[in-house]
């Protein structure tokens, strides 16, 4: 029984094919699992281990290092409020406190209906637009407490259609058409120099730069 859906399994194989070592696709596949279920299940980790020729323990060992991977169910909408210095200076902590009060949960917690999780996060690279937050990693900039209440209301009432549910990151995937790629290069595959470096020899022979 495959954990991944047929479509996702195809994406998984294509992803693995872009790395010289299967294990390099581990993080990408954890993202894919999280996209499928909103969090990373044990079944997902077992199949990722098979696909990458590692063990489930290695998959969890790597995955648990990275904050974005959740090994328990979280809300469909994860609100990540930045409280790092640039945001703190302009009200990030107050914004987080307001989110906690509005939703009745503390940072790290999930609402009983499984709709929202709040996190107190580190710098998300929108420092000139402080205070800022992300909902499922989609930016909201210069957020006031009123904006935040509106956002929560919009999500509750199905009006935040531009934000996919938790787990989905970039909606466009890389796809290399057959025959267009140069091909992956593993350490054991290419012990000779790449062909275009031969151009340096010609220059040397002509008395140019080596």
């Amino acid at each position: 029984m495959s954990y991944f859906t047929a479509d996702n399994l195809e994406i998984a194989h294509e992803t693995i094919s872009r790395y010289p070592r299967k294990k390099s696709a581990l993080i990408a596949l954890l993202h894919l699992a999280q996209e499928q279920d909103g969090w990373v299940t044990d079944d997902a980790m077992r199949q990722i281990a098979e696909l990458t020729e590692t063990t489930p323990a290695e998959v969890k060992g790597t995955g648990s290092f990275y904050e974005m991977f959740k090994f328990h169910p979280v809300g469909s909408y994860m609100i990540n409020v930045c409280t790092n210095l640039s945001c703190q200076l302009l009200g990030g902590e107050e914004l987080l406190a307001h989110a906690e009060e509005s939703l009745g949960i503390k940072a790290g917690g999930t609402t009983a209906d499984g709709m929202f999780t709040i996190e107190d996060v580190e710098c998300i690279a929108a420092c000139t637009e402080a205070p800022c937050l992300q909902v499922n990693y989609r930016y909201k900039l210069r957020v006031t407490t009123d904006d935040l209440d509106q956002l929560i209301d919009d999500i509750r009432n199905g009006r935040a259609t531009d934000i996919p549910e938790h787990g989905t990151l970039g909606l466009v995937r890389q796809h290399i058409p057959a025959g267009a790629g140069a091909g992956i290069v593993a350490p054991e595959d290419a012990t000779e120099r790449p062909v275009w470096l031969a151009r340096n020899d010609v220059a040397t022979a002509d008395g140019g730069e080596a």
Partner: protein
Amino acid sequence: MPTHDYVAHAPGYVDNDGPKIVTSRLVHEDSHTLERYEATNGYDGLRRALDRTPADVHEEVRNAVVLGRGGAGFPAGVKWGFMPPGKFPYYLVVNGDESEPGTYKDRLLMERDPHQLIEGCLITCYALGLSQCFLYVRGEMPAAQENIAQALNDAYAKGYVGKNIMGTEFSVDITLTWGAGAYIVGEETALIESLEGNRGMPRLKPPFFPAAIGLYGQPTIVNNVETLSNLPWLMLNGSEQYKAYGSEASPGSRMVAVSGHVNRPGVYEIEQGVTTFRDLFYGDNFCRGIRDGHELKMFVPGGGSAPWFFPEQLDLQLEGRAVGAEGSMLGSGAIMVMDETTDSVKAALRLVRFYARESCGKCTPCREGTTWEERILQRIVDGEGRPSDIDKLLDIADNISPGPYPVAADPAQGLEAVPFPPKQTTICPLGPSSVAPITSTIRRFRHEYEAKITKRDSIPVMSAPMASDPVEVS
């Protein structure tokens, strides 16, 4: 009131009359598309490069002195020269894991001009004979992931990437890969670990830097997004034109993000080594002063890891060596400005908490030390500090970074600057970075710490009056 007169589709970017080496297209709403890119000299830099020998292209980059824009400021052309000859294959890893506190520039370049970055990667691969490129984008940036993926798909379709690029024998694949939320992965050896499917823990170096032993044990060049984004312009205009901008030691431009208590926070492309912090904070072309009615108290000149500066350092130019001699660094071009309303202990605590959370746990002084620093600062902020806490903080800091820690001069106290960089008892600079906010604030605002500790508002001195005391009835 702070203003935000930005280019709507590139929030934060301020289009002023500064240099436009990497930001030339950001004014266009469709700057991320191949159509716009081709209409604005797109891939012409690569075309020029392909007309020259790889060695010649490397030489051009070396001549231009393209300083790394990720933090360390090491010249890319020199770094490129460290690969051992003949140990093929070589790899390129692009560091798009921007997460240094206060840093906001690589995300703009990845989201708004992905083809420029891709072209920069290709020029690098051509010059050095790199066999495959891995473009690592921070996990929390889906818009950057989407725009780069689309750009790559379009570039493959047009023959700019992949097999026989532009009809030549030059062939290379670019693999887009996502991070998953770990600041430390911005450190180049941790990034390589992450790319190999492991926990993002830095490798011990020296002796072997990635240029010698990197991804899959092969020679690997790791460059920052902004660094590589400079290359298309450089190939098109040449190193002499490039050096017409900036100072001799730091040619070209660089992107800086100014955030915090200024009237017009924003991302600006400035000339390196020319613009001063005063120009940047008060200039009409830039931030237009500290927010209304307030005064500058302190600022972080180069990301959360940089020791802090104060009004005395305002006239320094944004030039790596000059800033280093004065006790800090330009780092990732992240400048955070704080006015007199800022509680320096609280601000220091917030940055220290960041390092405590993000420590990968490999080295004991960092794993334990950053946590202790955070707890002690937290209790001081909570009004539960002990008189010995200030010295204890400095002692823990000294275990992570021994010796005098880099710090700015303080003429009022007769103290001189300690130049950058700090020493470290750890593998990577994360632990020592946690010391920057502590030493910067204790040296300058020790009285703020002492006031918090001696007040002890929340701790009752006696739980009940003693029997012999007169009892006042109110």
